[in-house]
């Protein structure tokens, strides 16, 4: 059993601040975290390993700092971490990212079989959710997006039954293996890392792969060169205009509420049938 999990280190977007003058992101001092969905993917892979044996490999494309995220995954129970890091990979869009990750998986496939690929549903910095589907398309493995439960997993018959969340409810899918799942947080609750794992991780050094070694990447397909999309401009969202501010403390309750209702009625957005005003 070999599971490969793709994880991304992202800025904690709840702490992101924007420079109002330049409209750019203030990166200094913004903490980085493992993309919240991805850590659940790691946990799922570890649980499968606990049940069926085998190994969990965690891969990430990012700057050297992303080593921290890989080590955290080793703490969670992953066996091997690979950071694919090269200046030439910078400014990649989802197409270029999916190429790098798919090519990495292909390199792992040359070493031995891979039974399961786990990705997060989406990364909270870009929120695209495109990288998982892209890698599945490149590797030509079945894609099961928004997975919430692995109902059964049979590495011998090479089949799994997976629940995925869709608008109509839960879709129960049988898939052949290997398959690529993009996971929701429900897939597996993250446990506190056990002490032996922590000790293990403290000594662990993730592998660092460049664009040239140990496997060469096609430079035309990576980074900005390999990205069909570019950011034309970035700006802070235009705010709606503030309307009237009514204060209960100043006007009294029923008067304030009546005024607000009057504005709603004037704006013609709803019909309020029995409304007779709050005014005595």
């Amino acid at each position, binding site marked *: 059993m070999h599971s490969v999990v793709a994880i991304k280190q992202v800025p904690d977007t709840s702490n*992101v601040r924007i420079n109002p003058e330049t409209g750019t992101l203030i990166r200094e001092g913004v903490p980085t975290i493992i993309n919240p969905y991805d850590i659940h993917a790691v946990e799922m892979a570890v649980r499968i390993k606990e049940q069926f044996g085998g190994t969990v490999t965690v891969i990430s494309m990012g700057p050297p700092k992303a080593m921290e995220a890989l080590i955290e995954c080793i703490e969670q129970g992953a066996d091997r971490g690979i950071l694919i890091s090269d200046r030439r990979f910078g400014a990649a869009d989802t197409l270029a990212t999916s190429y790098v990750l798919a090519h990495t998986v292909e390199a792992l496939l040359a070493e031995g079989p891979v039974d399961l690929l786990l990705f997060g549903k989406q990364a909270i910095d870009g929120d695209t959710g495109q990288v998982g589907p892209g890698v599945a398309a490149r590797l030509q493995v079945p894609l099961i997006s928004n997975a919430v439960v692995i109902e059964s997993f049979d590495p011998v018959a090479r089949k799994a039954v997976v629940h995925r969340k869709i608008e109509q409810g839960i879709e129960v899918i049988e898939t052949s293996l290997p398959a690529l799942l993009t996971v929701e947080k429900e897939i597996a609750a993250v446990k506190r890392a056990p002490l032996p794992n922590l000790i293990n991780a403290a000594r662990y050094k993730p592998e660092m792969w460049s664009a040239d070694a140990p496997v060469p990447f096609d430079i035309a397909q990576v980074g900005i060169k390999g990205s069909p999309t570019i*950011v034309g401009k970035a700006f802070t*969202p235009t705010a709606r205009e503030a309307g009237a501010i*009514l204060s209960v403390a100043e006007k009294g309750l029923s008067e304030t509420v009546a005024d607000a209702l009057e504005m709603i009625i004037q704006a013609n957005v709803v019909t309020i049938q029995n409304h007779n005003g709050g005014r005595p």
Partner: protein
Amino acid sequence: MSEQLETSSPRIWVFIEQEEGQPHPVSWELMGAAGRLAEELPGSVVEGVLLGHDVAGIAPLAYRYGAKRVYMIDDPLLETYRNMPYGVGVSKLVTKYTPEIFLFGATTLGRDLAGTIATRVHTGLTADCTELAIDPKQKILAATRPTFGGNLMATILCRKHRPQMATVRPRVLPMPEPLAEAEGELLREPLDLKESDIPVRRLRLIPGEEQLNIEYADVIVAGGRGVGGPGGFKLLEELADALGGVVGASRPVIDAGWLSHEHQVGQTGTTVRPKLYIAAGISGAVQHTVGMSGANFILAINSDPKAPIFQMANASIVGDLYKVIPELIRQVKGTGNGQ
């Protein structure tokens, strides 16, 4: 038939999403946007792409929303959505007819499929756009989307690769009025797959407990952490009932288990576009407001006069929601002046 197709006119494609023969309304919202883009791209045509089984009946509706032509793959293998046969079918259409622009709803299905198509045909895809326009100089799609949790907007361009692909969430774009009558052309294409080619099967569907349909509600009464507990939502529900609306919530409410995820509005919840949005006990974090700033009228109720939500509300009440909401209910129901 295909000889008649204009080869020079740029095609603007809309993926017509359907489930059990029911078209998803986001398809028509996208048709409306495609029509506006077409005005900026001389000679272009708006066309629909329709996959499923026994779905030909949807095509006439697509014409009324502005499609001149619908490319349809109708096959029993497409009875329910599966990534692989849909991916193969749509990619084949793209390769054959080379659309200039291709729009999808940012639904679970649309996201799953669009990411696959973009990779298969090797092009750029911009997810969750809030605005689509044609760049006047370069005559290409300018797709604007929020990033970094809504803190920043970015306009994405795809210069050299085609089609230029984008997904848009339901309710982000206005719903156009359909024409009373319109004609179009239906082009059938084969799928050329066997069941044994497909690596997945749907075993069953466990229907969702709640069909809340918050995204298409006209009135939403939303509560946040300020509601303080699950009990308070009874009050919000009463107001929602009186206004013919539904209850929405900010994320902490869902995280605390006071309401189910279907109620969550915002970046990681649903985008809504009601006529009236009442936000009670919600501070107005950007991750929340990106999901509701399209509302026609926002009434904010918050005890903190400095709450950021007041910066964007059409009307704001500084006060305790436990006093304000019962009074609102009384006045809406017309049951006296509550002194």
